[in-house]
């Protein structure tokens, strides 16, 4: 049995009258690629922001490496956050900085003091990991969407985190780029031995990369299983995700 | 990389802002120090137009300002601060004077004079009241007066108007009767010519009759004439007696009067000549140009005297150590300050780098036919001289002239009563070793009176060069620190005074 890295117990969160998360439970195992799939507005992003401590829950507990982050002071949360790297849906590259400066950013703001030469080496190494070379001095505005996503991934793993969170990594990309991003997620896991949490509504990608898929609906996990189990499931909602009406013959 | 640009830009902003602030602050700051002023106060019935910081002037020269205006028993208590070197006596007078029709006013102070008789020979102690106050005529009062005057004028014109309107009938009547009268007279004269002729004829007849009458009475007339003759004789005798008694003493009245009249004649002629501008005195008096010239000459002499009186001299000795040249450089400076806004600077400099003279010669090198140009650079250890003329604007002084025996210019920024000075000199423009002049900049800080420290950078833009043969530092950027002593003629007077006083 693998070790649990993230454990979410009975998570509730409301925004005004909007009860987004309604007693959500989830565990993520070390080294796994956990995909959380759900429709738009099902609370996927809210869940992710809770896991990294950007939002605090109305009720429920979240454990990261056995530590309960829902009871932590802001400063302790900061410490725990260093275990995470996050790839945003919009990449969220700092557009006033060059690609190299973006990737180097987590190193510069961290506790550890890196030398300039070391930073340059790590930046080169991480960019090579996402198959980008010679783009160090470009500004984010000069990159394509797929390239931005890769740089975002390079930035997310620059400080060697234990957990990488992906927020809709394939949304809004063409099928070719989706493929390469999926490959990158797998490759990153294999090379860096990180735990990955991917939230998505793209079932095809999920089936391709996931070790485990959790389906989120109305603030709860309604189904969990491996890609094979999902494909065999007869849950109507899950089946609609697997075979959208538009795709049916 | 870009951080350098950021630093430069922010640094530029900081410098520009701070310099702007210092310039404004220096300009706005009142020159006379706040601590050396005496406070007095006076009561005014009307302080309108006065405000704190309004000028207090003596003979038009600002000597202080109003520090506060408060109420005291229905009158305005005006407190003034007056420079302590202006003594104020008990008979001083404080006058309020308008400076514009807008109501802006200032105080004119007549500081008074010592009056030993009344026991008022000591100046007023600070904090006491100036009792003599003249408020002057305020705009309000002028306006009130003007109102009265216009009211009077209006009344007069109104009366006049009424008189003319009321009496116009009678005036016209008078005119009409005058016309009537003259017309009647005219007619009368015309009609009466014949009658006049008759009258004249009658008159002729009467005179004839009269003549007849007198010829008949000749004796009586002769008697009357005799009487008259006697009377005149008597009168002549009396007059002769009177004249004799007056002329009795010496030659009589005649010569005296003649002399007097001669004298008067002379005087008149002199005056006439003077008036015509003849003779030296005449020219002096009547020739305007000459008069003006004499006046100007006198003024010039007086100016010269005051200038001599105000000429200040400052001598300073300075030595500084140059780090690359590894030796000291010495200066003796004489500053002549005829007025606060200009000075002359004479300086003797002993520079370890020496004076470089360059000569271009044509010579034939041995064994060659062709003549060649060759430059000979001779470095001599002679003293260098600076002669500079400087003009000063507030805290900035601009100098130009001879700097270290070459042409140049420079400027000084003076702060903290000239205790902190930033200097920049540019000179030696024509040197062939570098395409830019020698720029020297340094800061002087007077730590205790007469003693200052200096730190600076010489030849800021030139690469340092050493003589390949001797290894001696030849030219280029060099840092230096040093110190100097500075004395004004006042100090020297005191110094010499004590020395000569101490001698037997």
């Amino acid at each position: 049995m693998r070790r649990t890295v993230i454990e979410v117990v009975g998570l509730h969160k409301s925004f005004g009258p909007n009860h987004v998360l309604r007693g959500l439970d989830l565990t993520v195992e070390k080294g796994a690629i956990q995909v959380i799939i759900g429709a738009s507005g099902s609370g996927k992003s809210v869940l992710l922001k809770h896991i990294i401590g950007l939002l605090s829950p109305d009720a429920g507990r979240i454990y990261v490496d056995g530590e309960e982050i829902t009871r932590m002071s802001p400063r302790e949360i900061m410490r725990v956050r260093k275990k995470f790297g996050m790839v945003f849906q919009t990449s969220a590259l700092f557009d006033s900085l060059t690609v190299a400066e973006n990737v180097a950013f987590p190193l510069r703001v961290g506790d550890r003091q890196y030398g300039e030469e070391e930073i340059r080496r790590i930046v080169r190494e991480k960019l090579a990991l996402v198959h980008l070379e010679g783009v160090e001095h470009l500004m984010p505005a000069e990159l394509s969407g797929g390239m931005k996503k890769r740089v975002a991934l390079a930035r997310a793993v620059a400080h060697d985190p234990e957990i990488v969170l992906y927020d809709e990594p394939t949304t809004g990309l063409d099928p070719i780029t989706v493929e390469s991003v999926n490959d990158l997620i797998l490759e990153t896991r294999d090379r860096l031995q990180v735990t990955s949490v991917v939230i998505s509504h793209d079932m095809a990608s999920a089936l391709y990369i996931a070790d485990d898929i959790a389906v989120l609906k109305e603030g709860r996990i309604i189904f969990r299983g491996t890609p094979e189990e999902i494909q065999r499931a007869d849950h109507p909602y899950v089946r609609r995700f697997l075979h959208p009406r538009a795709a049916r013959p | 990389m870009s951080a350098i640009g950021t630093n430069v830009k922010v640094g530029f902003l900081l410098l520009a802002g701070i310099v702007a602030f210092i310039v404004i602050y220096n300009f706005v700051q009142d020159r006379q120090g706040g601590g050396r002023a005496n406070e007095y106060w006076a009561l005014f019935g009307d302080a309108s137009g006065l405000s704190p910081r309004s000028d207090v002037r003596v003979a038009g020269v600002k000597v202080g300002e109003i520090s506060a205006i408060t109420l005291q028993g229905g009158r305005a208590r005006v407190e003034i601060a007056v420079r302590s070197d202006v003594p104020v006596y008990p008979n001083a007078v404080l006058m309020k004077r308008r400076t514009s029709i807008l109501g802006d006013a200032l105080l004119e102070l007549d500081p008074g004079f010592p009056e030993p008789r009344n026991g008022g020979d000591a100046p007023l102690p600070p904090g006491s009241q100036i009792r003599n106050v003249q408020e002057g005529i305020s705009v309000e009062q002028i306006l009130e007066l003007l109102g009265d005057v216009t009211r009077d004028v209006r009344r007069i014109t109104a009366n006049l108007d009424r008189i003319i309107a009321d009496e116009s009938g009678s005036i016209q009547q008078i005119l009409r009767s005058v016309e009537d009268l003259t017309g009647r007279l005219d007619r009368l004269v015309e009609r009466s010519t014949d009658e006049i002729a008759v009258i004249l004829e009658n008159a002729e007849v009467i005179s004839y009759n009269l003549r007849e009458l007198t010829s008949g009475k000749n004796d009586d007339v002769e008697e009357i004439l005799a009487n008259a003759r006697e009377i005149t004789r008597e009168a002549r005798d009396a007059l002769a007696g009177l004249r004799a008694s007056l002329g009795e003493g010496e030659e009589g009245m005649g010569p005296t009067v003649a002399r007097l009249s001669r004298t008067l004649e002379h005087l008149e002629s002199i005056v006439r000549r003077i008036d015509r501008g003849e003779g030296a005195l005449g020219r002096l008096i009547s020739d305007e140009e000459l008069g003006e010239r004499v006046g100007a000459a006198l003024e010039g002499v007086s100016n010269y005297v005051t200038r001599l009186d105000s000429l200040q001299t400052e001598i300073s000795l300075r030595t500084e150590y140059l780090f690359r040249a590894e030796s000291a450089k010495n200066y003796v400076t004489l500053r002549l300050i005829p007025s606060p806004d200009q000075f002359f600077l004479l300086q003797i400099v002993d520079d370890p780098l020496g004076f470089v003279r360059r000569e271009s010669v044509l010579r034939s090198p041995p064994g060659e036919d062709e003549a060649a140009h060759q430059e000979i650079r001779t470095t001599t250890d002679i003293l260098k001289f600076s002669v500079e003329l400087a003009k000063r604007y507030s805290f900035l002084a601009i100098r130009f002239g001879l700097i270290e025996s070459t042409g140049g210019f420079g400027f000084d920024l003076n702060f903290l009563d000239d205790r902190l000075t930033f200097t920049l000199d540019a000179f030696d423009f024509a040197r062939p070793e570098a395409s830019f002049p020698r720029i020297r900049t340094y800061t002087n800080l007077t730590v205790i009176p007469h003693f200052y420290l200096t730190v600076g950078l010489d030849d800021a833009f030139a690469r340092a060069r050493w003589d390949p043969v001797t290894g001696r530092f030849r030219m280029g950027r060099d840092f230096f620190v040093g110190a100097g002593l500075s004395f004004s003629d006042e100090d020297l007077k005191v110094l010499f005074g004590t020395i000569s006083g101490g001698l037997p």
Partner: protein
Amino acid sequence: MGDLGRGALRLVGTLGDIVLQVVADLGGMARMGARLLVLTIRPPYRLRNLLSAMEAIGFGSLSVVVLTAFFAGAVFSLQVSLAFSLFNAETLVGATIALSMARELAPVLTALMVTGRAGSAIATELGTMRVSEQIDALATMAVEPEHYLLVPRVWAGVLTLPLLTAIFNLVAILAASFVAITVENLSVAAFWARIPSWVDPKDVIGGLIKSAVFGLILSLAGCYKGYNATGGARGVGLATTQAVVLGSVLILVSDYLLTTVMLPWWRSS
């Protein structure tokens, strides 16, 4: 009647909303300001961020401030010379201009220009960072976004505005003297002579203190509106406009309050 009544009610309601919005903005800014003050003393101290914020706010506004100062001084000088020459009070022209520049015009005009230029830029930049998740990204990298982004910007506003105002003062008075002397034929002495006795260092310093407060207001308004922007590109545009309006209004209101507070000090000798 009914329509009119409803219209009036709606108007009152709208006005109430506006007032409530301004009060809410004020409260939000105050809370943010207090939080930033606490964050300021907490390490790490990011001098580079401060410098680049000073570059953006201060150096970037230098040209527009100098330009404004020149023309403000020139126009003011024309008008004042014209008016005062009617009363033979030409000697007061320089003093009047210098005093009103030092106390009021330089701080307020500088602050308004910088609000338009840099306050809006702050709101746009932060708003863009907010809607493109860059601020969240910062937070995930264990950096407090407020500490990293807002503290240096607000301090840059507080520190650079007095510098810009001092420059404004100098440029404006030089421009005013230039116009008065060349165009209005005032003598150099008439223009400058009365300034030292009418204007005190504390007038200048009071103006600079004001400008520091204005710097705080305009940068805080930009930060507050930009940092809390929502709703994509449109939201960013809205935040920018609101930041400029809020900043300008608060600068003018606070100028009145600050002048009220400072007048007794300025008047005292």
